[in-house]
């Protein structure tokens, strides 16, 4: 595998964090209230752990994905610290592996991606692992 997307710079935008926090039903003051956040150990607003869903992690060249019918099987986020509101992060995606497993309804194809975000000092803040599943029917539509 080893396909890598171009790097895309994303900003952890305050309004985007507020809308995301409201959409997931979590009005934590550390996401929303600058004064509370300033007095916390973080000294500033932070983003919810699953907020990077909004980031553009870059498009992979040459990875064929169907327009619909993809099943999101598994997701993980690994952090070295929280994301801070207002900071820029440089993101990219790696195509890690693909494999097949026989299920009761036919063969399932698994696609595994890793997405990362590095801060302005070049330190890795976030590494994700995204697992998507294609059913035999959907995989056949994409071809190999």
């Amino acid at each position: 595998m080893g396909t890598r997307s171009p790097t895309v710079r994303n900003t952890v935008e305050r309004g985007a964090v507020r809308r995301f926090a409201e959409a997931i039903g979590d009005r934590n003051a550390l996401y929303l209230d600058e004064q509370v956040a300033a007095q916390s150990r973080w000294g500033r607003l932070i983003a919810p752990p699953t907020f990077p869903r909004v980031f553009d992690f870059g498009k992979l060249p040459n990875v064929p994905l169907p327009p619909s019918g993809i099943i999101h099987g598994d997701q993980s986020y690994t952090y070295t610290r929280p994301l801070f509101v207002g900071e820029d992060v440089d993101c990219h995606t790696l195509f890690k592996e693909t494999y097949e497993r026989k299920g009761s309804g036919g063969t399932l194809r698994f696609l595994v991606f890793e997405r990362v975000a590095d801060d302005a000092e070049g330190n890795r803040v976030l590494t994700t692992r995204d697992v998507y599943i294609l059913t035999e029917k959907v995989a056949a539509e994409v071809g190999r």
Partner: protein
Amino acid sequence: MRGRLSPWTVGDRLEERELPPVDRMALVRYAGASGDFNPIHIVDEEAKRTGLPGIIQHGMLTMAQMGTLVSPYLANGFVEHFQTRFVGMLFLGERLTIGGEVTAVEAHADDQTITFDLHARTHEGRQIAKGTLRFRWLGA
């Protein structure tokens, strides 16, 4: 150093929470906030076209809701690792119950790692997602 210790021990449970029934507006709001406009979460006909009986909640919204269980502790530390396996689909009108339990407490020189098993089920007990979350407890 005792002041730095977390209040958690193995077997402690996070208070279980029942969320409001899934409604279309909440899914539209999450679609807008996350940028995930996959129509199977919004448009009935599109969901039916893929063989589903109706629209389903975004798995990533379920994961985010499970993550809110540790939100009260974000002044004490941060989420170091959060993994979720999506095992079932959640339909309009269904209510999610989320909860979790401490499975490990690991002490380091200056802080602790607390590992939680998290679950999300319908109020009827059908499994929707299972998670593991490691929380880095830095102190009070």
